[in-house]
């Protein structure tokens, strides 16, 4: 995860809160949050090697396929759930959002922006986008539900989800002026803090 993004998420995570990180990878973010924000953290991951790294870091981790595993937390109570660059890999991103906001007060979502200008050029010349940020070919990518910043914000509105904070990333992980002015065109990634009344 880009340093910028992890900093932003760290700012949003309340001290001492209970959080769950879907697609936690090797546990780097959670380890940091456990150390610096004193959170009670749990990661969800499907890759065995990454799970072993979490255990090595003493980061609690659960092996689950997020697509099927979200139901397991229905009776749980978290302060925050995090889904960094995973929502576009799910079968039903809209249902996933609803679920996460049912068992956690707030939810952090980060997602790649298909509206980024380099993606548009790719599509303009009749090709599926392959960019430094989305490096896989269409037949190899795990991203089955890519969307633009605008699409995502429209979905939030449609599902009555409040966007409490947002933050956009430009190439090289900088918070550029251009990506703030017109994120749907200039941002490679959007980072959202969501809430549902």
């Amino acid at each position, binding site marked *: 995860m880009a340093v910028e993004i992890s900093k932003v998420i760290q700012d949003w995570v309340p001290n001492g809160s*209970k959080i*769950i990180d879907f697609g936690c990878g090797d546990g780097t973010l959670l380890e940091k949050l456990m150390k610096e924000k004193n959170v*009670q953290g*749990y990661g969800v991951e499907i890759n*065995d090697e990454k*799970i*072993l790294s*979490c*255990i*090595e*870091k*003493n980061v*609690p*981790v*659960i*092996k689950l396929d997020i697509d099927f595993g979200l139901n*397991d*937390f229905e*009776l*749980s*109570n978290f302060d925050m759930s995090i889904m960094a660059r995973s929502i576009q890999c799910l079968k039903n991103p809209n249902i996933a959002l609803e679920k996460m906001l049912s068992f956690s007060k707030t939810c952090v979502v980060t997602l790649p922006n298909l509206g980024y200008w380099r993606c548009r050029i790719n599509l303009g010349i009749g090709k599926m986008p392959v960019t430094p940020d989305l490096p896989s070919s269409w037949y190899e990518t795990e991203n089955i539900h890519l969307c633009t910043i605008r699409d995502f914000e429209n979905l939030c509105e449609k599902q009555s989800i409040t966007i409490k904070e947002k933050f956009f990333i430009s190439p090289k992980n900088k918070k550029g002026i251009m990506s703030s002015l017109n994120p749907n065109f200039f941002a490679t990634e959007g980072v959202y803090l969501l809430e549902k009344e």
Partner: protein
Amino acid sequence: MKIETNIFDFDEGIHLENGTKLISFKLMVETYGELNQSKSNGILLCHAFSGNHHAAGKNADGIVGWWDQLVGPDKAIDTNKFFVVCCNNLGGCSGSSGPTEINPLTDEIYGKNFPQVSVKDWVNSQKMLSDRLGISKWHLIVGGSLGGMQALQWAISYPDSVNKAGILAAAAKSSTQNIAMNEVARESIRKDPNFCNGEYIKNNKKPKDGIKAARMLGHITYLSEQHMDLRFGRKYQDESSKISGDVDFEVENYLQYKGEKFSESFDANSYIIMTKAMDGYDIASDNKMLEENMKNIKASLLIVGFNSDWLYPPARGKEIQIAAINQNIKSSYIVLDGEQGHDSFLFHSKKYSKAIKNFIES
């Protein structure tokens, strides 16, 4: 590796969950490695239903311990670093107080009169052993199957005495199917004419056929369908190595062999007591109950399930994990493929050993 095997006598006795009391008892204990000065490097292994105190290395009879693949110098549970302890559970038949031992009240063999012990009783007796060893807090308590139930119960019963608990191929309760399988096994023992209503020792008999059939059924439940297919397929047994004329297939020969061997060493009353203890364990009559029971746990947990295990499938471990999360317990849950079905917890695999090692040393 330094191995010591000792009998510990407990003249103070123990109150059992069923309301009776053993006025005194003994535990057969094996230890590996050395206890450090601060007594902080202790690891307690809890054995499964037919296991015993001999967990690692070779004993005098040349028998390799049940968890030798994971316990030893430089192995996942490293005896160079940790003082590893394993005892034969009460009611067993490997030297601890049990049906084949003398009842101090009557000076006769307990036989069928040995009281029904439980997972909680085992944990309580192991706690007495810990006190005797001077270990106030175990770095890790770990076990597979019925042993995993003990590790979980330890974390519940003695929250201040467990730093980490490893719960492998286990569950918070036996399932209906588990109980059903065990009952078939017990019935085959009871209906052996040599069982003599449990008094076979007095009558100089041994219900070997019953134990053998029980074990053969057990073995099927410990293995996965795929593993049996790969290992035996539909291959026919060589005439020269057939155990009996009734055998056609290799798998039959294997079960006959395993059953026969087991029936020579295991006690029938122990079989009944151990499986009844397993069936009786239930700290999760519903999810709320499980959470209530787990709320005081202070240990970190590692819960491991195996996809090929249909006796205690991974979903049983997941129930414990979800309850742990809801009770803010530091707990990890992993699922590995494990080729050998329920028995997978006994065998080394790269990921499995690494998970345990990482958990111990994190």
